[in-house]
């Protein structure tokens, strides 16, 4: 009986739709309620990461709002536009926080966050994400080891081109026996990021302020 089949099918479809509507609206409601707390806690988490690689006295602006878009660049290893944060003191750019990706790790990409000041000196580096072997290559992560702090205070001025290698390859960076590929990738990505900042000094450290900053100035 085609009519009852159609009726049965549409009744079933209506039930499924009712469930979909109810649960979608529930999800939408929870999303609305949690949207702001999530944004706040993400901003706080990001800020505390920035704080690890850049001491508070290096800037007096709102780092999270003062951003500049960097187009993809082979020196940064980026394939998409990334946002860099500019640190300023009295509106004068003092440092930049940018992302770099090393593609030559042992397994997968290693994502780095670097803070480099206007003189080209590294204030700090952190690995944001990596897929290196647990127990071997993961000492690049600050949660496992302080190795990544070797980069603090390094710059193109106090090291020669050949210094930017692990000790095994004749450079000046320590590594741990059993995992050379991982630190090699991090050292070279950090070096390339320094070169990038050096080449783009003009754009990164120009006095020009972002719109949010201007608005803040006017409010004062």
């Amino acid at each position, binding site marked *: 009986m085609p009519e009852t089949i159609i009726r049965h099918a549409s009744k079933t479809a209506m*039930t499924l739709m009712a469930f979909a509507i109810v*649960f979608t609206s529930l*999800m939408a409601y*929870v*999303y609305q309620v*949690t949207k702001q*707390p999530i944004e706040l806690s993400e901003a706080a988490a990001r800020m505390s990461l920035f704080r690890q690689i850049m001491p508070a006295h290096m800037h007096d602006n709102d780092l999270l709002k003062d951003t500049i878009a960097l187009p993809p660049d082979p020196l940064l290893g980026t394939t998409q536009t990334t946002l860099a944060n500019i640190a300023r003191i009295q509106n004068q750019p003092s440092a930049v926080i940018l992302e770099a990706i090393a593609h030559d790790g042992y397994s997968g990409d290693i994502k780095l966050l670097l803070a480099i000041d206007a003189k080209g000196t590294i204030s700090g580096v952190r690995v944001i994400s990596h897929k290196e072997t647990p*127990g*071997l290559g993961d000492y690049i992560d600050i949660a496992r080891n302080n190795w990544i702090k070797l980069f603090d205070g390094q710059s193109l001025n106090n090291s020669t081109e050949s210094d930017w290698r692990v000790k095994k390859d004749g450079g000046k960076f320590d590594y741990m026996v059993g995992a050379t590929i991982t630190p090699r990738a991090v050292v070279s990505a950090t070096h390339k990021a320094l070169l990038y900042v050096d080449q783009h000094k003009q754009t990164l450290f120009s006095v020009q302020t972002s719109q949010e900053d201007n608005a803040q100035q006017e409010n004062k």
Partner: protein
Amino acid sequence: MSQYSEIAHNAVWKQNPGVVQLLGLCPTLAVTTSVVNGVSLGLATALVMAAANGAVSPVRKFVPDEIRVPVFILVIAALVTMIDLTIHGFAEPLHKVLGIFIPLIVVNCIVLARVESFAAKNEPAPAIWDGFMMGIGLTIVLALLGGMRELVGKGTLFSGLDLAFGPEFKAYILTVIPDYHGFLLAILPPGAFLGLASLIALRNWAEIRKTTPNNAATTNALKPSH
């Protein structure tokens, strides 16, 4: 035995999701590199299972048989999303630890299995209890497996506790074998399979010993039946 203690016994021992039903092996094998990871995922799963069973049981009579699976998946996915958002918004430190595991729970078939085989046939209260206890049964397996792998692989226990609860908990991390260089096999995926296999064997052995009082019968039980 009352209905509730029977459900609990069933979930933790007789039908343990980790070592008897062998459902949800993907997260079981993937995250048990340490006790803290295992227990965190286990407890999150218990929460989701209790919520999913509790949500399905009251509406079970309105769900036509033909579309029960899509409806159940819809309910589970929605619940997991809501729990994920809530934890992210109001318990950021917890989200840092559980964050990557919570979306994984959607694909854990143990949740769908309990909704389908228990919540769809029972009253809400026993259904919630069943979901929760199944989660606890899984948590026990994850904790044991995580403990084994962490001990053999890294020589420590409870590492990562400081990441979960704050730096003051660093003191509770036990270094069981000092100056241990690590046994990588235990941490890598093969270690998960070997560890889980040992746990399954251990449970089967205990079950055989319990159900056969005579030693003679033990050998029979291990023989394949013809």
